[in-house]
């Protein structure tokens, strides 16, 4: 039992040594990754555009709600 444990520990240690010995100089994989370029500033732009559109959509819905109430009142006053 002790032997097995000893062997497995040695194996793990060797594994880690071999892992480190592997060359890590893989060339960076080029992908279409525009959102990560220039310090990821495009992500900030995206976030702000989303927030802005959320605010616009909300304002428009309030605007429409007010228009509907205006129309309702007009119809009521005609009756």
């Amino acid at each position, binding site marked *: 039992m002790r032997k097995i444990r000893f062997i497995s520990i040695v194996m793990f240690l060797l594994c880690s040594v071999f892992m480190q010995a592997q060359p890590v100089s893989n060339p960076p994989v080029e992908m279409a990754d525009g959102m990560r370029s220039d310090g990821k500033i495009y992500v900030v*732009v995206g976030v702000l*555009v989303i927030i802005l559109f959320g605010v616009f959509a909300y*304002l*428009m819905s309030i605007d429409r709600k007010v*228009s509907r109430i*205006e129309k309702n*009142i*007009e119809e009521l*006053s005609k009756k």
Partner: protein
Amino acid sequence: MIKRDIFSKSWWKYLCIIFLTYTVIAGFLMPVPALEILHETIRNLYFHVCMWFSMMFILTVSLVYSLKYLNKPNEDYDIIASQSSYTGLMFGVLGLATGSLWARYTWGAWWTNDPKLNGAAIALLSYFAYVVLRNAMDDEQKRARISAVYNIFAYAMMMVFIMIYPRLKEVDSLHPGNGGNPGFNQYDLDSHMRLVFYPAVIGWLLLCSWIASINIRTERIKRHLANQ
């Protein structure tokens, strides 16, 4: 009958969406001059300064309608004047908050004894007093008349404390264009920044007007229902 005018039209609201979307995208991506201390925060010009421009625009609208009310007491003038100044107050608070954050990372403190900061705070307080004054009176005509008169005073305070006092050569100000400092336009509001700054001003003015228009329309409905 509820009044329907330019406030219910939608074309200028689409214009606002176009200008502000352009502002956010171009505001972050267009080149800006590289300056000491400011670095990328110079882009705040498209946002922080526009808050103050919007505030001054909508408060000027408020003043004009207060004057119109004093000339001819029409209830609708009072609605436009009051709701415009409420919206202006909101933009003023945003201007103070954004300016405070900007100051922390360029001047080193959340609040400095800059005459423009203290002046803006005084100006906003005088408009808070306008809100308190309006809420303190129940009689509609009296409220409209007295708050219209007070609005002239508040506007004068705002102009003196934001536009005139910080610009004096005798006071020390950190703001560009104030206290004898050169203005932004003289050395670093270059042609690229103008391309974003001017549309940004228009876009934020339109957004401010949009919010004010919703306030005005709801107030009209409220008064209409109350009068019945």
